[in-house]
């Protein structure tokens, strides 16, 4: 079984330049911006290959995640791995954000 980093040369479907275009959304650009900040020379908190390692760790879920949701998961796991925040802090923050978003009627 080849990982997603090793698709080169495998059979695959046609490329449709017209339907395979996508204008990045504001949300996606926010994730992109966060990754760029973590990559930058001042912070050096992430590297491209580290981000890829985390995305590949999704295993079979790699293709179930939209591209920027994979990036987001990679950022979150990398920050946990590097001790920027703990799993407990992340869970507490997610509970806080979930309560806030549900109160604001997001995602409904």
């Amino acid at each position, binding site marked *: 079984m080849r990982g*997603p*980093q*090793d*698709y*080169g*040369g*495998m*059979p*695959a*479907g*046609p*490329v*449709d*330049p017209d339907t*395979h*275009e*996508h204008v*990045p*959304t*504001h*949300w996606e*650009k*926010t*994730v*992109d*911006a*966060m990754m*760029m*900040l*973590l990559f*930058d*020379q001042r*912070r050096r908190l992430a*590297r*491209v*290959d580290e981000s*890829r390692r985390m*995305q590949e760790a999704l295993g079979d879920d790699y*293709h179930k995640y*939209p*591209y*920027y*949701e994979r990036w*987001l*998961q990679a*950022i*979150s796991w990398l*920050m946990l791995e590097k001790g*920027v*925040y703990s799993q407990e*802090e*992340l869970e507490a*923050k*997610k509970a*806080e*954000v*979930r309560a806030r*978003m549900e109160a604001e009627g*997001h*995602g409904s």
Partner: protein
Amino acid sequence: MSETHDHSHDHAHPTHTHDGKPIQEDPLPSLEAQILEASVRELLIEKGVISSDDVRRAIDQVESRTPALGAKIVARAWDDAEFKDKLMSDSDEALMAFGVDMRPTELCVVENTDDVHNMVVCTLCSCYPRPVLGIPPAWYKRRDYRSRAVREPRAILREFGTDIPEKKQVRVHDSNADLRYLVLPQRPDGTEGWDQERLARLVTRDSMIGVSDALAPADVED
């Protein structure tokens, strides 16, 4: 990102105001993804890793990086032999004239000629010369393109409507975390005497990835 970045550049199509609110309602990801994004961002801000201003400025920078910048670079290379030599041999120094900093990655410029057509892929994932072309197109990130580009590039090129004569060699360049590629397309015939601004209108994103050629004068002249 640059600490000296300012807000003076033009947003041709602004998607958010400077207080970060989207102008147009974009489709949102799942609630779980929204929650995770807000949680990670707020934790990074609370930990002092980034600030809200940093995020806003970085989004501005993401939006300021478009293929128009790459097109200006290609047009100058077509028009200015000395610049082209510099771009091909020491791209960092040449790109400085455009305020582009590729570090920590390296940009390798590959030139299309009568004998060689170059095309870029990232089989690993989606490495791309973002500082000069912006966010890669969706097809570039898809498994189909990544898998087949290194095995049957001419078939993919035909799917883009690009027919490369059999006598011309097709070279595929596989990008990685440290090394990115930009294709210098061939300058179209019939552009003698054109200035760089006019030339740049012929340079498309796809021509700098190498899945198509630059436009012909007839494609852009009114």
